[in-house]
C-alpha cells in the first residue's frame, strides 16, 4: 500500500490557498465586529450595510467603468500586438514586444510612481482616466499572452484558403480569423476586467480621490467597525470573480475546441 504523499500534500496546499477566502463568508454572516472565534450568531446586517452604502455604490460604478474601459482598450491593444507578433516577422518585434510585456515583471510601485511623476509634470490632472491608462498598461501583457496563443493555434493555411477562395484581407479577417479567435478575445476581456477590478496600487496613486472598489476596501479596512462590511463585500466579490473566471475558462476551451487544438490547460 503506497501512501499518496503528494496528493495529501497538494490537498493541504489547497487548504492553505483557500483558508483566507473560506473564512470570509463566515465573518460576513457573524454578528460581531470582532473577527474572532467563537462566532456570535447569524446576521445579514453587513450585507444590508454594503447594499445601502452610497460611497460603495459610487466606488462600484467607478470601478466598473474603469474595468470596462480597461478591458476593451487592453484587448484591442493586445489583439494588435499579438497579431503583429504571430503573423509577421520583423526586426523591431522583439524589443517592442519586450517593452509591451515589461509590466508583467516590473514592480508595480515603480511603474505607478514613474507614470505619476510624468503625468504630474506634463500637467495631466489625475482622474479615472489616468487610472484607466495605468490599468491598460498593466493588463495589456495578459491580453497579449492570451491572444498570442489564440493566434498561434490558428493554422495559417486557413487564412490562405480564404484568400484563395476569393476573399480579400478584410473579409478574411471578418469571416475566418475573428470568429476563430473570438473566444480568446472574450477571455482576454474577462481577465483584464478582473485584474482591473482588483488592482490597488495604480488605483491608489493615479486616482484623484474618486473611490474605486479596491481603494475603498483598503480605506475601510483601516477602521475596525467597517471591517465586517468588507467581509460581506468580499464574499460577493469572490462569488462574482468565480463566475467571471468560469466564463472565461468556458470561452477559452470552446476556442480550443473550435480550432481543434488539444487543451494544454489553465490561464497564463
Amino acid at each position, binding site marked *: 500500500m503506497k501512501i499518496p504523499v503528494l496528493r495529501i500534500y497538494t490537498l493541504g496546499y489547497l487548504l492553505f490557498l483557500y483558508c483566507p477566502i473560506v473564512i470570509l463568508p463566515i465573518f460576513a454572516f457573524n454578528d460581531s465586529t470582532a473577527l474572532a472565534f467563537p462566532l456570535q450568531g447569524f446576521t445579514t446586517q453587513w450585507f444590508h450595510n454594503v447594499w445601502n452604502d452610497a460611497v460603495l455604490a459610487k466606488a462600484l460604478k467607478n470601478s466598473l467603468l474603469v474595468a470596462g474601459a480597461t478591458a476593451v482598450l487592453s484587448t484591442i491593444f493586445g489583439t494588435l500586438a499579438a497579431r503583429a507578433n504571430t503573423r509577421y516577422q520583423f526586426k523591431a518585434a522583439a524589443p517592442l514586444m519586450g517593452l509591451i510585456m515589461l509590466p508583467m515583471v516590473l514592480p508595480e510601485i515603480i511603474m505607478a510612481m514613474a507614470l505619476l511623476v510624468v503625468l504630474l509634470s506634463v500637467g495631466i490632472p489625475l482622474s479615472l482616466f489616468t487610472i484607466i491608462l495605468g490599468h491598460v498598461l498593466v493588463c495589456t501583457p495578459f491580453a497579449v499572452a492570451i491572444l498570442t496563443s489564440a493566434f498561434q493555434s490558428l493554422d495559417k493555411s486557413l487564412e*490562405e484558403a*480564404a*484568400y484563395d477562395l*476569393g*476573399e480579400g484581407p478584410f*473579409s478574411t479577417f471578418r469571416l475566418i480569423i475573428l470568429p476563430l479567435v473570438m473566444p480568446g478575445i472574450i477571455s482576454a476581456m474577462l481577465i483584464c476586467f478582473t485584474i482591473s477590478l482588483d488592482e490597488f496600487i495604480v488605483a491608489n496613486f493615479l486616482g484623484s480621490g474618486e473611490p474605486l472598489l479596491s481603494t475603498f476596501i483598503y480605506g475601510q479596512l483601516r477602521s475596525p467597525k467597517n471591517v465586517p462590511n468588507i467581509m460581506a463585500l468580499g464574499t460577493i466579490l469572490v462569488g462574482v470573480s468565480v463566475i467571471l473566471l468560469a466564463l472565461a475558462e468556458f470561452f477559452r476551451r470552446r476556442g480550443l475546441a473550435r480550432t481543434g487544438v488539444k487543451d494544454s490547460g489553465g490561464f497564463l
Partner: protein
Amino acid sequence: MTSDKPTMIEFQDVQKYYGDYHALRGISATIQAGEFFSLLGPSGCGKTTLLRTIAGFEGISSGVVLIDGKDVAAVPPNQRPTNMVFQSYAIFPHLTVAQNVGFGLRKDPRSAADKARAVDEALAMVGLSGYGGRAANALSGGQRQRVALARALILKPKVLLLDEPLSALDKKLRENMQVELIRLQRQVGITFILVTHDQEEALVMSDRIAVMFEGQIAQLDSPERLYRLPKTRAVANFIGTMNFLSANILSEAAGLVEVDVQGFGRLQLDAQKQVTGSPSANGATIGFRPETATLLFDGQQPSDRETMATVEEVVYYGDMTYYDVLLDGTSAPVRLSMRNVFGRPVLDIGTRTRVGWSPGALVLFR
C-alpha cells in the same frame, strides 16, 4: 505527345530568394491545359514554393509566371483562376461542410437556391452527398480531403493546385484517393498540378512530371520516359532504383555508341533511345533497372546475354524477392528483383548463378 494542347501555365526563368536563400533557380517550363502535372522532389527542393507562386501566395524575385497567357505578377490570389487544396486541407473549423464548400460563392450573383444546388453537386462529385449539415470538425481525414476538393472545384478554376494532398492519409486510403483524383481530373477536365515527394504517387497519377532538385527542374517528362530514360543519376535514383556500372565510350558513329561496360563487356547502344545526359568530363556510366535483368534458374535460357554472378544478399517480400548479386568482373553488387512465380526457389546467399540481361534495356549516362 501532348504538345498540341494549349498552354495553361508558363514559367519564364523564375527566380525566388528568401533573403540569401535561393529557393527557385531559374524555372522555365510550360504546363498544358487539361494536364495532370506533378512537381516531384525531396523536401526543400522548391516544389511547394513553385506551386505557391502559381496560387499567388509567394511573390517571385524575377522572371514571369503566365496563367492562361496572362502575366499574373500583379494579380492577388483571390483573383487568380486557380484554387488550392492545402496540405492541412485548411477546412474552416467553425463552419459546416456545406458552408465550407460554398465559401467561395459568397460574391456569386446566383440565388441562394442555385448556390445550394451547386454545393450539393460539388459534394456529390466527391462522394459526400448528405454531409452538408455536418460540422467540419467531425470529419475524418479522408472526408476533409474531399471537402477541400469540393470547395476548390465548385469555383470551376482553370487550374487546381494540390499541395501534398495525400501525405496525411494512411496507405490504403491514399491509394483509393489517387484513383479518385485521376477520375475527378478526367471528369472536370481542368489542369491539376500536384506537389508530392512520393515518386510512386507521381508515376501513377501524372501525365507529366517535373522532377525538382535544389530549386531547379532536373527533368520534365512523361512518367514512362522519366522511368526509362532519366536524364541524370540523381533523377534515376529518386524515381525507383537503378543499378550503375562504370563504362568507357569507345566510339560513336551512325547513331550507335560503342561502350565497354564493367562486367558486361563490349556493347553497341542506340544513341537516340539509350543515351542520356550531356557529355561530361567524369566517366560514363551504364544504368539498368532491377527488373530488366533476371536470374537464370537451372536450364533456363537467356533471352539475350548472360553473365555469371554470386548472390550476396536476399530480401524476401512475399510476391517478390530482391537479390543483391555481384557480377563477375565488378566490385559492387547490383540489385535484381524477381517475381516469386509458382515453383521458383529462393536462392541462398553465396549461390553462384547466371544473370540474363539485354543490351536494349541499358541506359548510358555520359
